[in-house]
């Protein structure tokens, strides 16, 4: 075991090296944990929806609660028009949540602590939302960049500012998730390293910190998944209802 706090983020290959042209598409530990989280989601929901009892079992309660949480989130932030996008937002929320939570297990790998993963998710959302906006409103979607009641003189600057703030969405979405996960896990590892270096006499204080931080990290893991999903809803709301 290495005491380097960044060691936990190393991506390494599992199995043979596969390449497609110049691109390396080998199976890595990151792909392994993504698959594990996808399989975990499928099995939890399979177990939860297998028997539909009136008095739910714990696992059925879990699935029903998560359904209500996401469906309420969508109807609160994006309105009834966004109902067809429920499956996408639900899977997104569940995937991010499970990746974050699996990362909390010792010896596991946190997929969402890599910016390429979160940025890929955010880019899918950004492109998808832009397409939805143009499909629903045509060229009128560009009105998003022209706020109402702005004098004509200021218009060129305002349009540029609005465009930058639109383009900043995927960046802020991905950086937020990635930075929170990476900072949290690094901090946990640093305090864990203190426990070892201070030994049996002085190690108790950082150990108690580590325990407290683990609780905080679990909260953040949930919260970041929630924020990721709710921001997707807000962007979807802009694309569907255009009330800027």
């Amino acid at each position: 075991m290495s005491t380097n706090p960044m060691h936990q983020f190393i991506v390494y290959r599992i199995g043979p090296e596969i390449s497609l042209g110049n691109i390396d598409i080998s199976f890595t530990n990151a792909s392994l944990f993504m698959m594990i989280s996808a399989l975990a989601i499928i099995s939890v929901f399979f177990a939860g929806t297998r028997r539909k009892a009136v008095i739910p079992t714990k696992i059925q309660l879990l699935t029903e609660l998560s359904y209500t949480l996401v469906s309420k989130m969508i109807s609160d932030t994006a309105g009834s028009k966004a109902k067809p996008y429920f499956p996408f937002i639900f899977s997104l929320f569940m995937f991010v949540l499970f990746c974050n939570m699996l990362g909390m297990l010792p010896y596991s790998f946190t997929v969402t602590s890599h910016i390429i993963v979160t940025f890929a998710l955010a880019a899918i959302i950004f492109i998808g939302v832009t397409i939805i906006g143009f499909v629903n409103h045509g060229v009128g979607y560009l009105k998003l960049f022209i706020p109402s009641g702005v004098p004509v003189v200021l218009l060129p600057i305002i349009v540029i500012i609005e465009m930058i703030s639109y383009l900043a969405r995927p960046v802020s979405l991905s950086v937020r998730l990635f930075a929170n996960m990476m900072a949290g896990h690094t901090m946990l590892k640093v305090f864990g390293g203190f426990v070892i270096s201070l030994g049996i006499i002085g190690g108790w204080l950082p150990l108690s910190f580590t325990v407290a931080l683990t609780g905080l990290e679990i909260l953040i893991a949930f919260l970041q998944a929630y924020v990721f999903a709710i921001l997707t809803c807000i962007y979807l709301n802009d694309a569907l209802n255009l009330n800027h």
Partner: protein
Amino acid sequence: MKKFDVLSTRLKIAKKKANKNSLNNDKKNTSSLGAALKLSTEMVAAVFVGSIIGFILDNWFDSKPWLTIIFFFVGAAAGILNVIRSAKLMQKNND
């Protein structure tokens, strides 16, 4: 029969109370923590994107470093706009 009626109304009231309490607490806790985590990245991302756009345009027009500098400030303005917008949204949600 009357007993059942009484019980069901009492149950209804209790449910309503429980619902209200848990909802309020939930919303307050998650939204304020979410807000704290949200605002900082909003600002940084816009500045970052603005500077990158300025840098790319500089390479196109061979005008280093002027467009980078200008777009840095435009990006900062966009960041402030984003922060104000999401703060407004939070305020609306809290009410």
